């Protein structure tokens, strides 16, 4: 009487099976794909009073890239191919020789580089215009080439100033580099060319 009996251990041999089933369930219902892509910021919607006085940008500060419905490229005034986009963009953004047809160079003091004054094409804009029939793939390839142009320029400067590639710099250093090469790709207002399509 009153003798304490030992509680028998719970049989846990099936816990493994249960958790296996849960595991398999999750494997089936979830997707692993990490989404990657090109991030862009759209301009704010136009205010009514803003429509008439569009911001004037000097002609030399704009690089127009137009793509027509047959996916032919026009950079500035020249017919061109996808392979040229990057080089043209780099030349345009940097304007190393201070050419009169490329964007204005303005001296800018940059804190992150020890207050050094750099010549920066501060007001440059790259504008990509497409037709309604242009393939998205071509548009994307142009955008990709533009970003890679910026990244290469930033890498070059970062190596010069800090000895490392842009991605390995600290946040402050990256910010300084970004001040020299700000990314300015305009999402232009859509235009309709050539009738209905």
């Amino acid at each position, binding site marked *: 009487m009153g003798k304490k009996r030992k509680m028998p251990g719970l049989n846990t041999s099936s816990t*493994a099976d*249960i*958790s296996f089933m849960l*595991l398999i369930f*999750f494997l089936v219902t979830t997707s692993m794909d990490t989404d990657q892509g*090109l*991030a862009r910021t759209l301009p704010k919607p136009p205010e009514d009073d803003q429509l008439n006085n569009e911001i004037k940008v000097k002609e030399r500060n704009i690089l127009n890239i137009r793509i027509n419905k047959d996916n032919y490229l026009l950079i500035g005034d020249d017919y061109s191919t996808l392979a040229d986009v990057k080089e043209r963009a780099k030349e345009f953004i940097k304007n190393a020789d201070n050419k009169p047809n490329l964007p204005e160079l303005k001296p800018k003091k940059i804190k992150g580089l020890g207050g050094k004054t750099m010549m920066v094409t501060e007001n440059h804009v790259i504008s990509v215009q497409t037709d309604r029939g242009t393939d998205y793939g071509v548009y994307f390839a142009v955008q*990709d080439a533009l970003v890679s142009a910026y990244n290469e320029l930033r890498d070059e400067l970062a190596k010069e100033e800090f000895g490392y590639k842009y991605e390995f710099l600290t946040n402050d250093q990256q910010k300084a580099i970004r001040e020299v090469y700000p990314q300015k790709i305009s999402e232009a207002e859509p235009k309709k060319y050539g009738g209905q399509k």
Partner: protein
Amino acid sequence: MSRFNKGAGREMPEMNTSSLPDLIFTILFFFMMVTTMREVTLKVKFEKPVGTQLEKLARKSCTSFIYIGQPTDALKGQFGTAHRIQLNDKYAEAPEIYDYVMSDRGELPEADKPFYTVSLKVDHHTPMGIITDVKQVLRKAYALKIVYSANKKQD
């Protein structure tokens, strides 16, 4: 009477499997963390463009997806081959994106709203006209952060 044969009748001791569930649970939790629920069944098929300068999407919880492409093979007979926009589980027209964005963003906690991003998963043959329309609606809805979803170029 060899001296090595003394345990002739002895059985192999059973392996202790009591930690097996813990192991599996660890794997389970790992998968629960790195994966996300597949949220929609795709009604359009798309082949994303390839790029080299891609960034990873920062926060998947604050992201809405818009799919654009041709209807899948099963639905082709019914809907034709024109490129369509898919929101959630159904086809939609561009103006409907406004409500979609508003309701999706409305569900987010206030602190996450500035990080709200729209990811465009678009087939590379889609004409830009559709995408331009979508972008105009997104601007109107003040969903200004977008991501052109793409695959990394294999080299």
